[in-house]
């Protein structure tokens, strides 16, 4: 990135937009929030948008014929427009609102199991995932395979956390119906070559599902050129509220797929014998949607767009590179995943020799440093690396180098506390 654009990204100014970052914790410690891959903090503009929605516009959407209903519906649909523009969706009708990325992935896995004709997954078909997936991109496919008699296969990854692409042609074959993979691993931080894998998948007629939960918050995304057929992500990791997620799907595919949940708003007409269904996206949005949350997500997208996703990505890369460099100074620390900030997201999981991640996180917390400890919903990835659990520090657009320093100081203190080296 050029010196010019670096000068325009002022992290100190950005931090002022996030009220929680200035709060003091029990004992007076300044919060050092290094758990953004888990959930991001929210800027005042998002908090205000949600609050204003409830204060001024609250009504149900698409079925209330009064002024508030119109305002609420408009705000909800504007959020859809914002999402579509943000990810480069060719059509707003390709944006389906869900509760979170998990629901979005379950939605795809379920409707592919229910689909008639070519799109349906059946006995003898294969579904390919990777060994570095979050549980939300493993379990729905296991369930699908168990129900349909399809077989689940997966890419392995190497000790540096890179997918083994030598398996590509052998794994993704004519029998493959779906390839579902994470764009950026929530545990290893690896950025996967989605387009390359998608090319192979499309050669053999397979569909490509991408878990972009960590990608959409961190970098510019253009679904039109990505090569994926479906992309799932969640609002709360991109400075938006919890309770709102997105499934983007190619229009012609969504149009052929059957409903997921049945209920209000997803229908065309209902008799007691049978119903016909609305076209996408409404077909996949049964019941009252997360309205205020969608409005909040819209505000989050405005916020991110104003910063510029290229600038966010550059900042993320810089902080991650700094953290990786500083972690090399800590004896006994082993990074799980790529050790260089190349094709790498801002989540860094690590082991500290002889100290359990729970204990590391507890000591760090006593100093105001918030990290995650455990398997980060990626147990198979830990198993692959021969570790039971890890500590994860994850950085975002408001992380400053001083916070990385606080982490490193905290790790040194942790080692002393437990009587290590």
């Amino acid at each position, binding site marked *: 990135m050029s010196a010019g654009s670096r000068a325009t990204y002022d992290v100190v100014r950005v931090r002022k937009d996030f009220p929680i970052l200035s709060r003091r914790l029990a004992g007076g410690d300044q919060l050092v929030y290094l758990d953004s891959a888990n959930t991001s903090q929210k800027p005042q503009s998002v908090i205000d948008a949600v609050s204003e929605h409830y204060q001024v516009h609250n009504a149900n959407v698409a079925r209330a014929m009064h002024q508030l209903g119109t305002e609420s519906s408009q705000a909800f649909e504007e959020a859809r427009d914002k999402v579509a523009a943000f990810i480069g969706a060719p059509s707003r009708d390709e944006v389906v609102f869900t509760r979170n990325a998990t629901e979005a992935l379950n939605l795809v896995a379920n409707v592919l199991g229910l689909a008639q004709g070519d799109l349906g997954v059946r006995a003898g078909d294969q579904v390919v995932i990777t060994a570095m997936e979050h549980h939300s991109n493993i379990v729905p496919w296991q369930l699908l395979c168990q129900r349909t008699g399809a077989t689940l296969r997966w890419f392995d990854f190497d000790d540096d956390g890179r997918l083994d692409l030598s398996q590509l042609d052998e794994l993704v074959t004519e029998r493959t119906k779906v390839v579902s993979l994470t764009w950026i691993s929530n545990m290893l931080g690896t950025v996967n070559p989605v387009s390359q894998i998608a090319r192979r998948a499309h050669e053999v007629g397979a569909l490509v599902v991408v878990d972009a939960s960590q990608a959409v918050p961190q970098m510019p995304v253009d679904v039109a050129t990505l090569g994926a057929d479906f992309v799932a992500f969640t609002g709360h990791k991109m400075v938006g509220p919890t309770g709102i997620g997105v499934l983007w799907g190619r229009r012609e595919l969504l149009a052929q797929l059957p409903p997921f949940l049945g209920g209000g708003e997803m229908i065309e007409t209902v008799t007691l014998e049978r119903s016909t269904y609305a076209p996408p996206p409404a077909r996949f949005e049964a019941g009252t949607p997360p309205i205020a949350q969608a409005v909040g997500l819209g505000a989050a997208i405005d916020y991110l767009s104003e910063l510029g996703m290229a600038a966010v990505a550059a900042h993320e890369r810089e902080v991650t590179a700094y953290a990786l460099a500083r972690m090399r100074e800590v004896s006994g620390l082993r990074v799980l995943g790529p050790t260089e900030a190349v094709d790498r997201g801002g989540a860094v999981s690590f082991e500290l020799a002889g100290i359990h991640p729970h204990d590391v996180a507890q000591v760090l917390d006593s100093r105001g440093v918030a990290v995650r400890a455990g398997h980060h919903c990626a147990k198979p990835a830990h198993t692959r690396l021969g570790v*039971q659990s890890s500590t994860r520090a994850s950085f975002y657009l408001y992380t400053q180098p001083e916070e990385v320093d606080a982490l490193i100081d905290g790790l040194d203190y942790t080692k002393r506390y437990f009587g290590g080296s």
Partner: protein
Amino acid sequence: MSLDMLYQEIILDHYKNPHHRGLREPYDAQVHHVNPACGDEITLRVHLDRDTVADVSYDAIGCSISQASVSVLGDLVIGKDLDEAMALQEEFLTLMQGHGKVQPDEDRLEDAVAFAGVARFPGRIKCALLGWMAWKDATVQAVARRAATASAAMEEES
């Protein structure tokens, strides 16, 4: 909240030098418990000799709290009468679920009183209970198995 309230010296001692570790024969029941939140795991065996807890052996991976806690459990229940051991388990459970407001009886709980502070860290209560819940499960199974064997034997005799 102070770290030392959580990491009492006794806990760290047990963590560094765990007692009763390793899986041993003979045993009447073996269980495998996990903490799904963090992945901590324990395989635990119970051996009963009539109404006495003859042995508790285990293989576990986990944090200092979970490791120290099962070590303390072994100290406390091995050699005890079954009912007494069950009562101690109950007391420890009450202590852990007491939000830090339960006064532990040191004469009864011995080293386990060091875990009183853990009750004030909600995120760690499951760590402290992992081994104790596994022990209860294994013991209940061991007792049930013994009863089943006894009734089968009686049926054969009759």
